[in-house]
C-alpha cells in the first residue's frame, strides 16, 4: 500500500526504529545536549564521551518518529571512533544530503546514512532527520543550552 514511500521508509529505518542502537544514559559522558523539535514534540538527549578529540562513545535517550529515531541511532553508530573534525564534516555532508542543496554529495562517504537521503522529497520531515545532527553539532561546539529546530 505504501510503495511510494519506499525511498523514505527503508528497511534500515524500520530496523533502527524498532531496535535503536546506543539507546542508554551514559553516566561518564563529558558532553550532554538536549534537542527538541517543537513542531512535532520530538525530544532527545545526546551523550558523548570525547577523549583527545576522538568520540570514544555516543548514546541517546528520548522519543520521536521513526525518521528521527533512526537518524539519531545511525548517527551514534557512525560517529564512534571519529575525530571531532570528522564528525563535523559528516554533519555538513548529512545536512547537504537532506536539504538537497547539492547534488554532489558523496553518498559513499556517508555510508549507511544514505538511507535518510529520501527525506529530501518530504520538506515537512527534513527536521526529523536533522535534529540529531544539529544536537551533535551543538555538543561538538560544547554548547550547554538545549537545541531547537525552530
Amino acid at each position: 500500500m505504501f510503495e511510494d514511500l519506499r525511498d523514505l521508509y527503508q528497511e534500515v529505518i524500520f530496523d533502527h526504529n524498532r531496535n535503536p542502537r546506543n539507546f542508554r544514559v551514559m553516566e561518564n559522558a563529558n558532553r550532554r545536549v538536549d534537542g527538541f523539535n517543537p513542531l512535532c514534540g520530538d525530544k532527545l538527549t545526546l551523550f558523548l564521551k570525547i577523549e583527545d578529540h576522538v568520540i570514544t562513545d555516543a548514546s541517546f535517550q528520548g522519543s520521536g518518529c521513526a525518521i528521527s529515531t533512526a537518524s539519531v541511532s545511525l548517527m551514534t553508530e557512525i560517529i564512534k571512533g571519529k575525530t571531532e573534525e570528522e564528525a563535523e564534516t559528516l554533519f555538513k555532508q548529512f545536512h547537504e544530503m537532506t536539504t538537497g542543496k547539492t547534488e554532489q554529495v558523496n553518498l559513499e562517504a556517508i555510508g549507511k546514512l544514505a538511507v535518510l537521503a529520501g527525506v529530501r522529497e518530504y520538506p515537512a520531515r527534513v527536521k526529523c532527520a536533522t535534529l540529531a545532527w544539529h544536537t551533535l553539532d551543538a555538543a561538538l561546539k560544547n554548547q550547554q543550552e538545549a537545541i531547537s529546530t525552530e
Partner: protein
Amino acid sequence: MTTYPIDQIRADFPILGETVRNKPLVYLDNAASCQKPQTVIDSIVHVYSHEYANIHRGVHTLSVKATDRFEAAREKVKEFINAGSTKEIVFVRGATEAINLIAQSYGKSQLQAGDEIVISAMEHHANIVPWQMLCQQIGTVLKVAPMNQKGELIFEEFEKLLGANTRLVAIAHMSNALGTINPVERIIAAAQAKNIPVLLDGAQAIPHMPVDVQALGCDFYVFSGHKLYGPSGTGVLYGKQALLEAMPPYQGGGDMIRTVSFEKTTYAGLPHKFEAGTPAIAEIIGLGAAIDYVTAVGMDKIAAYEAELLAYATEQAEQIKGMNIIGQAAEKGGILSFTLDHIHPHDIGTMLDSVGIAVRAGHHCAMPVMDFYAVPATARASFAMYNTRQEIDVLMQGIKSLIEVFG
C-alpha cells in the same frame, strides 16, 4: 442518512475531485480548515470581477454595491447565530483575533489585578495565551478547570472555581484536540447565577451544530470563517450589545471613527468601532455565501450526518488492535484523535498522505492536552459535511496497513 444529499454536496466542492500522490484525496483535516464550495469561490470571483471597491467610503456605485454586499454578510451572520442585532456582529480575522480583542478591550477595561478568569484544561492555545498575556499586563489570575480521562470537563470542579473574584469564563464550545462538546448551557447557567460573563470559543463547534446565541445566553461567542467552509482571514465576534458598548476600541484607524481632530476623536458606533481599517471585504462576502450554503443544507441535517460518521469511525477504530482513541467524551463532535502503539503520529501522517489521506499529526495547538494524556502528539481525523463512510473505510484500511508495515 437517506435524505442527506451527499453526492450533490461532494460535487459542490471542487477540491474533493483532486488527486494527491495519484490517489483520490481523502480530506480529513477539517478541524484545521475546511474546503470551500463552488458558491463561495464564485462569490469572491464575482466581487472582484463586478462589485469591488472599498466599503463605507465612497458615494460611487461600486463602493455602494460592495458596502451593501458586505453588510448583507453581517445580516446573514446575525441570522445564522440568531444574534439580536447586527450591532452585535463584529468582523475580525478569525477566532484568535476575536479572543485577543476581548482580552485586550474587555479585559483591560473591566478587569483588574486579582480578578480571575476561568478556562478549561482542553483549550486551544488561542484561548490560553491571550489570557496569559492579559495576566502579565494587569495582574489577573488564570484558573483552569480540569477534565477527566475521557476528556470531559469535570463540572463540579469547574463550579468550585467560580468564586468571588471570578470575572470571566472563557471556554471552548467544542474541543479541537478531543472533539468534546462542553455542557455550555450548564456552564452559562452556573456562571451567570454569579453574574460572571461567559465567552464561548466556537471555532470548532460552528460548522458542526446549530448555534443560537440568544438561546444559549452567552455574553461572547467567537468563530472563524475558514472552518465554516468560508474564506480564511474572516472571523466573527458576537458580543452582547451592552458589553460591546462599554468596551473601548481595540485598534484605531479608519472606519472606526465618527470625527477626528488633533485634539479629540470620537468613535463610531457598533459594530464599526471595532473594525478599524479596510477589512477582508471579498472574503467576508464569501463567508456570507458559505452561510447560505450550510443553511440551505441545514445545520440540523449536517449535525445528524456527522454524528453517524463519527459513530461509524469510532466503531471501526475500536476494532483495530493497537489503535487508541484520545478523547472519548459522551458528547462529542466529528473528531477522532488517536495514537497507534509504537508508531509516532508524524509517521502516521506521512504514510497516510502517501495514499491520499490528509490527517493532522501534532499537538493541535493544545500542548496542555497532550501533556494530560502524556503523549507528544496525536494523529487526528476530523470530519466535515462532505465526508463519507467510504472515506472512513479508506482511512481504517490505511491505518491497518501501516501497523503491518511497522510490525
